[in-house]
């Protein structure tokens, strides 16, 4: 079962995404910001990380930077964000994330990205 870590400070959104992914057969773990996210990567060892950008404490960009220099750097990250401008996407991709999904997204988009980047 594919393990997905969802990092988002909005409780309603992260729980909805989690419910959706659980319902469609993924194993899900949640974190409320980048700092908790880094801990959960170690504990949960996900196959892919879905991460928000604008969060208190450690934001998505900060999370990606630290994640990329950790021993789990191979675990792909997809940013899921309300920052919709082209330059935000370019910055995100320059940090080495696999994809940049703008909010609001469709489940199909999300699922396609997960399946594309998780090593089968």
């Amino acid at each position, binding site marked *: 079962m594919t393990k997905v870590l969802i990092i988002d400070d909005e409780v309603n959104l992260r729980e*909805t995404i989690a419910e*959706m992914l659980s319902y469609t057969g993924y194993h899900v773990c949640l974190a409320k910001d980048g700092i908790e996210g880094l801990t959960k990567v170690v504990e949960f060892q996900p196959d892919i990380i879905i991460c928000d950008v604008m969060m208190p404490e450690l934001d998505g960009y900060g999370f990606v930077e630290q994640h990329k220099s950790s021993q789990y750097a191979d675990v792909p990250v997809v940013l899921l964000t309300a920052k919709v401008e082209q330059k935000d996407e370019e910055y995100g991709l320059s940090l080495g994330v696999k994809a940049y999904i703008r909010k609001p997204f469709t489940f199909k988009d999300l699922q396609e990205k997960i399946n594309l980047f998780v090593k089968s």
Partner: protein
Amino acid sequence: MKQKNWYRLLADNTIDLVCLHNLDATFKYVSPSIQILLGYDPEEMIGKYPEEYVHPEDLEKFKIRIGSIIKDKERFSEQVRLKNNKGEYSWFETNASLVYENDIPVGFQSSTRDITQRKKAEQIIEDTLLQERQLNELRTNLVSTISHEFRTPMTTIRTSAELITMYLQNCQFNEAPQIEKRVKTITEEIDRIVELMDAVLTISKDDAGKTSFNPIVCNLNEICIEVIETSFNNQKDNRKVEVFFEVLNVAIFADSNLIKYTLFNVLSNAFKYSEGCGNVKLNLSIIDDFVQIDVIDNGIGIPKEDQSKLFNTFYRASNSNGIQGTGLGLYIIRMFTKKNSGRVYLESELGKGTKVTLRFPLYKN
């Protein structure tokens, strides 16, 4: 001698300040208007340096000007603040030129006018412009913040609606189709709000001069193909874009993102307003020094009386009822086309279809 008296009469009676200076700039003659303008007695100023009356912040540029008139024999016109006999400063404009006797410079003359009112008016204009800029900035930031802040709750609602649909597909109860229909409405309306938010954000960003614009030489045929393949190859009703390129590898100097956005919107309109009326055509041709893209549909068309107003914000044709739209699409299409030195034309016949033409100058090496 008589002529000299006339000049003296003029100088003594003018409301501007008229002065004669020695070559070291000291006053040789000061007209009586100095009393009204600055409150000094003309006699007390003879032999003094004009610099004594100039505001410290204007002193450097004033000295440079005085130097240049003597050294380079240049006339000058300069705005400076001068001090009155109460120590208060106000704005004046001074014009000066050399005075010659037997072709030898013996000093210079200056005429100085009170420009306080003009300066006040300039300041008001400057303040108003600054205020307008700040308001524009504020509006852009506000629109941008709203767009960010609304996006996450919109996503939660949309995702929840999708989740409900998934649950419905796996359960058996009578009202499931009705619930599914309502949930679909929720999703569609969320998409509509987001589309509107995006359009308002795009316009507001452009108003504030913040649209990212990086023109490069690009291949217009390739851009057309990319837009079609990414967004119009899997239409639900299997309709297609029929492409005809009169010429291949057409180069224009433009921002490819804005061109893609424009083409996407033109094609998306064509499909939206021609449901059940066959394929959409895209023709690319060359006319003189321009490349022209015609996007043609056989849809509902636009009433004559609406056609000229369609490029206004929030204006929608009277026959567009029941077809979702923001009323901002064509406005943005024109905005981005203009930015890329292009023009948009629209031809339409009610009930027969619409042709939107984008025309850009060809790139020449």
